């Protein structure tokens, strides 16, 4: 049997080579199918591994608490809030927290001016602890200090992107920028973090929390986010449970009412991204695998033509002693080889395409091909070859030698 298989490989390769152009066109469907699968997978996988790295650098043991208003309530004009009291409560009562900081987003204006330059950025009020929680450290100058907060000093720490947008000098420390009509002195600039999903992570301005609070005015409507990092031995699930209980009590939520806040972990966020990316991979992969199916049908079609065309040859082979399995294997292996060849070409093409895509979009992560997708692409194209080769091969093997010899 092994001997027959090897011999069939030999004759299949001869046959594919003899009909070069036809073989290429036949397998083109598979080539395109596999190339698209690989391109899609390599791009999304590159993205996914990049996101994984980014989140790891964000500090994977940090939590963010935000207020959350269901859409129905928003329609009624109700807005859930997290207040400085909630922050106080958590600070006093929760266990397993290493550092905690409020984050207050500027609601009035995100405009920032320097000289004649104007830019828009994410402006946040926060405290010294933000540094630990979000793993952002200053590259030049200093971070916000507790004293800044206590005295509501008008100072700011900026990201690299902001410096660039505003044409600030290489070392922006001690320059003054205008935020919401007030002048702030720059005391530090953060280390560069790069881009994630095309969004710069360096486009932000941090000011002391209390300063931001005083600028916002109306204290009753303050809605803050709380970021915290866990102490070393703390279990994420336990802390989340504890925080939920604390906040539900503080917000007077009864048993049936839903939480009016969400607690996000960096891991959760990463999982969400991963889920989205996997969904995209699966959906596009599914669509693309239809083209593999079409490619398989193309192979079957040509193999059927080929069987008819070679009827006489099959008759000759049977007359000189070929058994059913000899003929069956010959055609089956030819189909298998055709689609595997297509799979290989598609693999190379797909990787090239993926690299091209990720290189042509600035800030896009590098394409990477996981081994499983190579195995899957080759396995699937091989499967398609066998699946669609069976019918023509069986047709050839079942030919009657006399009829086949008479065939003109």
């Amino acid at each position, binding site marked *: 049997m092994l*001997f*027959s298989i090897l*011999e069939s490989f030999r004759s299949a390769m*001869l*046959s594919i080579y*003899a009909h070069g152009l036809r073989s290429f066109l036949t397998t083109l469907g598979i080539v395109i199918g596999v190339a698209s699968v690989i391109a899609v997978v390599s791009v999304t996988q590159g993205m996914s591994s990049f996101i994984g790295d980014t989140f790891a650098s964000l500090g994977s043991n940090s939590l963010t608490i935000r207020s959350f208003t269901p859409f129905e309530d928003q329609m009624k004009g109700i807005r859930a809030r997290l207040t400085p009291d909630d922050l106080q409560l958590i600070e006093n009562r929760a266990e397993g927290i290493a550092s905690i900081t409020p984050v207050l987003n500027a609601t009035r204006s995100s405009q920032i001016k320097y000289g004649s330059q104007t830019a828009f950025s994410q402006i946040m009020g926060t405290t010294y602890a933000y540094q630990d929680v979000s793993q952002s450290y200053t590259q030049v100058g200093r971070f916000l200090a507790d004293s800044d907060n206590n005295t509501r000093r008008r100072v700011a720490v900026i990201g690299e992107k902001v410096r660039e947008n505003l044409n600030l000098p290489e070392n922006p420390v001690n320059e003054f920028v205008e935020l919401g009509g007030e002048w702030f002195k720059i005391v530090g600039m953060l280390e560069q973090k790069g881009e994630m999903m095309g969004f710069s992570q360096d486009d932000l301005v941090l000011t002391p929390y209390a300063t931001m609070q005083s600028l916002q005015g109306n204290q009753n409507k303050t809605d803050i986010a709380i970021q915290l990092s866990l102490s070393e031995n703390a279990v994420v699930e336990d802390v989340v449970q504890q925080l939920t209980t604390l906040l539900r009590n503080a917000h007077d939520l009864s048993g049936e009412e839903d939480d009016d806040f969400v607690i996000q972990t960096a891991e959760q966020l990463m999982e969400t991204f991963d889920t989205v990316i996997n969904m995209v991979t699966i959906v596009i992969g599914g669509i693309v695998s239809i083209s593999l199916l079409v490619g398989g049908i193309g192979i079957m079609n040509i193999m059927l033509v080929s069987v008819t065309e070679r009827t*006489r*040859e099959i*008759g*000759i*082979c*049977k*007359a*000189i*002693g*070929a*058994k*059913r*399995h*000899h003929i069956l294997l010959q055609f089956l292996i030819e189909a298998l080889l055709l689609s595997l060849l297509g799979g290989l070409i598609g693999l190379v093409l797909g990787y090239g395409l993926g690299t091209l895509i990720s290189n042509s979009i600035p800030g896009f992560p590098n394409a990477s091909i996981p081994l499983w997708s190579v195995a899957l692409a080759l396995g699937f194209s091989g499967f398609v070859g066998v699946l669609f080769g069976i019918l023509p091969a069986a047709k050839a093997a079942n030919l009657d*030698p*006399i009829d086949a*010899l008479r065939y003109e």
Partner: protein
Amino acid sequence: MSLIKLSGITKHYAMGSQVVRALDGIDITVAKNDYLAFIGSSGSGKSTMLNILGCLDKPTTGEYYLNGKNVEGLNQNELSEIRNLEIGFIFQSFNLLPRATALGNVMQPLVYRNIGLKKRKEMALNSLKRVGLGDRTDHLPNQLSGGQRQRVAIARALVTHPSILLADEPTGNLDSKTTIEIMQLFDELHAEGHTLILVTHEDEIAHHCHRIIEMKDGRVYNDSTSHSAKVSH
């Protein structure tokens, strides 16, 4: 013991509502090293005869012993094996594989015997040399003349060392000069001890043979042994 023994062979085809009796009770024995020609007009059943002798077709009734083995009741795969081991076919239209070289064509039957490439090449080369084509092994069939093609076909038939060589109008597509060459080759093969069975409608060809069986309407009409015959029944 006779090499081939046919008794009561019939072959009936259903053509619409009619039954065609292509063979209608054939009893023949063929001895080893026989040199035999089936002659007859078209429709006399000689081609059907050859198909049955060559195990390409099964008789409707009757018994066929080849080399002491009953061929009846064998399935397609077993018949393939018999054809590979016992029979060498030579066809009117040569029936070479168009995409294989002369050598490749001659090696092909050995593939079905699971003989390795090196040994195959050696056997095929010997066989090609035997028919005088030792220098044309790498030519494709369409690069060869008719006579050369038929020699390749003969080499392919010989390479398996079959019990019988079956030739169906072997010179039907050849000119008279080549015909003489091919018939000389057949005479030599007979002299070497091969058993040859020919189907032809040319008397000249038939007269090379030592035994001529004339067929008519699916029956043996005349079975004659010529003077020079060395047939031992």
